[in-house]
């Protein structure tokens, strides 16, 4: 999969020859062809499509990376008609792929939702768009209206959960639909479907459904025509940070990370690349030729996540940026579990001290202790992601860490942040927490 330039594929984000894109239904059908989804349960069709998606090797694009068809097992086993939920929350601040997809190719996502509904026996689809993304909601509603006029069968509605980081987690969405509180739940057995009341819910990321719609049209062999045998297909990536052309790109899986970065024209030398999300991991630029695929990334301690590639210029300080991320993530905790509620701010405190060059000798040991104390002890994977990020920062920026810990912080900590944090997200506001008993 190595080429000189980034291979450009127009699967998910199709454009006309003049570079424009029309999100309308007619343009969608012209670009991708028709897709006939049976309005009622059709076993033969379901069996065919299910098999195609399973054989295509399509994995979820919402961060979990599990086989797309795996959730369908859990949902169909539960015996009741499920609800299909399109997860377009995109709570990850550095990600713009889902909103891009939904404003440019909403019909592809809605096609995928129809397919998922037909396969699982669902009669209703709900699209979750965060309450601060009115543009996306309008685009989806326009597309739904077009489909209504064209006579499609299953009712689709748009709902607006709160725009918080953990609200996009699938159990949090299910909880919000059920009782209005977007709090993630402890899931002991993932093979048991999520429920809203007694109805099982099938939650899929918007991009995953768009890919499903393509596989349903063109088949597994077509899907596998791009990418690698272990990681087939394409995926959307948001490239941001110290680059001249921050953008959403569709890349073949297996493309070297350095090519993905080059396409966005980095502004200068790169000292680190953030992959996956704010709960992902930093990549050492020396390893930047690693293929962008789950397996190879895991080998270097990174993750595909929700398709984030955030470039850290050499003029910035990796520790300072990590400190900002952790402070933001601490504020985004659902607040349900002690180790996360107390541990993440404590880790943020230590990182800020380290970044400012005011770390005492014990700060590194304390950081490592706290990371160990926080990971795996919450109901959801939020603290785990933060710990992974912090550990990767300590490894990738090891030289900087040493200098900062010795009281020689770099000048980069004063540089403007290249990271994006949602405006209005308060950081460090004092809050009262009632502590029971507690350590003496």
């Amino acid at each position, binding site marked *: 999969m190595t080429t000189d330039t980034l291979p450009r594929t127009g699967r998910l984000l199709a454009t006309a020859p003049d570079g424009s894109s029309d999100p309308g239904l007619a343009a969608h059908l012209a670009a991708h062809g028709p897709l006939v989804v049976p309005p009622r349960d059709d076993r033969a069709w379901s069996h065919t499509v299910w098999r195609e998606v399973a054989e295509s090797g399509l994995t979820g694009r919402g961060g979990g990376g599990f086989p797309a068809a795996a959730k369908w097992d859990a949902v169909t086993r539960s015996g009741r008609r499920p609800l299909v939920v399109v997860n377009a929350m995109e709570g990850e601040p550095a990600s713009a792929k889902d909103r891009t997809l939904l404003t440019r190719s909403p019909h592809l996502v809605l096609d995928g939702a129809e397919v998922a509904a037909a396969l699982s026996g669902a009669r209703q689809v709900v699209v979750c768009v965060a309450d601060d993304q009115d543009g996306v909601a309008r685009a989806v509603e326009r597309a739904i209206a077009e489909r209504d006029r064209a006579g499609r069968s299953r009712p689709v509605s748009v709902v607006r959960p709160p725009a918080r980081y953990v609200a996009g987690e699938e159990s949090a969405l299910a909880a919000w639909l059920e009782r209005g509180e977007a709090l993630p*739940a*402890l899931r002991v057995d993932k093979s048991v479907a999520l429920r809203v009341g007694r109805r099982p819910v099938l939650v899929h990321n918007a991009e995953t459904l768009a890919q499903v719609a393509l596989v349903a049209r063109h088949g597994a062999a077509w899907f596998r025509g791009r990418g690698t045998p272990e990681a087939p297909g394409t995926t959307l990536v948001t490239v941001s940070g110290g680059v001249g052309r921050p953008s959403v790109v569709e890349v073949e899986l297996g493309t070297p990370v350095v090519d993905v970065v080059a396409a966005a024209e980095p502004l200068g030398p790169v000292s680190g690349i953030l992959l996956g999300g704010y709960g992902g991991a930093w990549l050492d630029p020396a390893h930047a030729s690693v293929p962008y695929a789950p397996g190879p990334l895991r080998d270097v301690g990174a993750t595909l996540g929700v398709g984030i590639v955030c470039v850290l210029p050499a003029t910035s300080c990796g520790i300072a940026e990590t400190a900002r991320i952790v402070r933001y993530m601490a504020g985004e905790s659902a607040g*349900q*579990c*002690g*180790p996360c509620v*107390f*541990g993440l701010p404590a880790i943020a405190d230590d990182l800020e001290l380290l970044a400012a060059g005011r770390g005492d000798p014990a700060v590194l040991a304390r950081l490592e202790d706290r990371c160990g*104390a926080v990971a795996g*002890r*919450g*109901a959801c994977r939020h603290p785990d992601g933060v710990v992974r990020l912090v550990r990767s920062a300590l490894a990738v920026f090891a030289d900087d860490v040493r200098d900062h810990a010795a009281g020689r912080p770099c000048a980069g900590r004063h540089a403007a942040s290249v990271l994006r944090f949602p405006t209005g997200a308060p950081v460090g506001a004092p809050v009262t927490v009632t*502590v*029971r*008993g*507690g*350590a003496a």
Partner: protein
Amino acid sequence: MSRATATRVALRVDPVACDAYGFCAELLPERITLDEWGYPVVDGRPLDPDLVELATRAAAECPRRALHLERVVGPA
């Protein structure tokens, strides 16, 4: 030679329900310690039979019913 398996009991804490009362760590210090913020760090390995009674008591004493005993099947 058959490999015998036994059903044993292991501890698990529900992190959402837990409110750091700390009674569990007082009752079963062999398996539960408190972190620096007062929340339990539970050793999730299967319990020896002589600790099961204490573990049951610890689970019953939790004011939030956050401590659970789970059955695990493993090598005897």
